[in-house]
């Protein structure tokens, strides 16, 4: 069963057609990879799925519910968390405060309470522990390394307990040690039932962690299948990896 589905989605910026009738489905409970060459429309598709962009045409469905016109906060409230290609943390807040922003209470009385109060504080501490940032919890988030900021963004999405996490290039600029750590965290959360959709250029990372991979080319879906199937498909090799897959992997 698919958790997120896009149907015939189109999006243009002036004369540039970023999405040209893209149709795709991401399986519930799986780690889904989304790959494609630069400019193929991956990030635009993420923006459309998370409410940051409105499509010119087409539909976005979350477990069958139409989310095409939903705003980013409504998508987040519906259980879809998202990280960005360039991290978007709150640099002047401490690491712990960052995690708490995503755990905001909605009611007026809840807003009046101390920000470290309530069950969400335990969740925030657990999330930081989960990504290994506990000892940095009182540091300004802007002083973290880029890789640590990626982990922090991951943590503050996690604290809201989303059922679907969309990660935009989580491996970009992250050193191999942190990357292994991140991959372990993704697998652990996936084992708890969280669905992932991951946009990534690091083929080793994608092929190692994903159950299913979708390929985009020129704003539309090219194919989808298991990592092995995608890896050996001539159309993918031609469109995305060029003529030599091993060169791309290198």
């Amino acid at each position, binding site marked *: 069963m698919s958790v997120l589905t896009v149907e015939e989605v189109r999006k243009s910026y002036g004369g540039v057609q970023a999405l040209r009738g893209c149709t795709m489905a991401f399986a519930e409970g799986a780690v889904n990879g989304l790959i494609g060459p630069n400019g193929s429309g991956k990030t635009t598709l993420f923006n459309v799925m998370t409410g*940051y962009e409105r499509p010119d045409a087409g539909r976005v469905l979350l477990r069958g519910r139409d989310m095409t016109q939903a705003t980013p*906060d409504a998508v987040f409230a519906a259980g879809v968390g998202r990280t960005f290609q360039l991290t978007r943390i*709150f*640099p002047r807040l401490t690491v712990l405060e960052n995690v*708490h922003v995503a755990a905001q209470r909605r009611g007026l009385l809840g807003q009046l309470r101390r920000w470290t109060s309530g069950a969400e504080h335990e969740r925030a*501490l657990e999330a930081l522990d989960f990504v290994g940032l506990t000892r940095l919890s009182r540091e300004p988030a802007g002083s973290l390394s880029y890789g640590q900021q990626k982990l922090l963004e991951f943590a503050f999405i996690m604290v809201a307990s989303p059922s679907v996490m969309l990660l935009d290039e989580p491996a970009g600029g992250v050193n191999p040690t942190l990357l292994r750590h991140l991959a372990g965290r993704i697998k652990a959360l996936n084992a708890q039932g969280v669905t992932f959709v991951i946009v990534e250029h690091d083929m080793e990372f994608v092929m190692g962690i994903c159950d299913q991979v979708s390929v985009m080319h020129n704003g539309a879906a090219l194919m989808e299948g298991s990592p092995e199937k995608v890896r050996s498909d001539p159309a993918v090799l031609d469109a995305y990896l060029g003529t030599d897959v091993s060169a791309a992997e290198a």
Partner: protein
Amino acid sequence: MSATDVSNRTATDSPASYDLPRTVRFGSLLLVVAALVVFPLVFTNPTITSVGVFAMIYLLAVSGWNIFSGYSGYIALGHALFFGIGQYSSAMLTSRFKIPAGWDLFALLPVAGAIAGLAAVPIGWMLLRVRKHTFIVLTIAVMFIFQLLAFNLRSWTGGSQGMQLPFPTWSGAYFNEPFYYIGLLAAAIALVTSWWVRRSKFGLGLLAIRDDEDRARSLGVRTTRTKLVAFAISAVFVGAAGAIYAPFIGSVFPQFAFDPSFDLALAVMAFTGGLGTLIGPALGALVIGSLQQYFLLQFGGANVFLIVYGLLFVLILRLLPQGIVPSIAARWRQWVTYRARNTPSTGVPPDSAPDVGRPFDVVLNQGGSA
């Protein structure tokens, strides 16, 4: 992972602590409060106590202003609008309801504050649709619109003739002292409110808006409501400041009630002390507010204080670009980090010297577009 796992973390996992010991913090607070309380009893010269009254009015206004502009990063340069509304509310209520010029004058403080806060709701609802420079310019524009209204609605405001308030009935021997203590009490309430906002979930939402409003919204922070509530709270305190100022001066005129230099003063005080910190703007108000009045009293209308303002601002920009309090806090954190590095097993991370950012950069680099 369970909560028990979290509580079982090892000592090396513990975050660094930069807080001063509780006794030091509490002792310092007591000392400052005691000094402010006894100030007019020690310095009885009316010139000095008059400087103290102005310092308290600025302390109240800038602490209120900081709740919105300091925490949200939206720099409002039109809060003189609420200062003016507070003054006119005080003057109109006094004359229309024939309020005796005794202590009853101070009963109008919460009323004037509430009127300013209510006025802030529709004004903020309109202004908070824009950001950054556009917001700054619009706040100034709305303030001038109210100044024009005050000039032209003569039957209500007296126009350019202004309005007179009754002379207080208490003895002239201690004319300034009641204003000083009421100002101090109101400022204390503003500072406690600011402290509460800073530690609440509501305040965390404001700080997130300051750093990246769109991201905060996408994470479920109700940005419009949060900004509007903070805007109204800040207006209440600035309005109350106006309601102390008007009876102290004894008259209200449009050009002085809605005065752009008041807005500049608030911004300079907050930036100097440390925008968005609890005590930074208060410190700025006490230092600059007092200096301004001292120079005005010493040199009359020569505006010498403007030269001092400029010099002080340049010095702060050069030497303490984050403002006084954040700069000292950053030095303190660096020292704690340095000390921890030379003490094994404290769990303080390497390379964690904090960069709290330059407020001047932060103001102009807020996320989103105008």
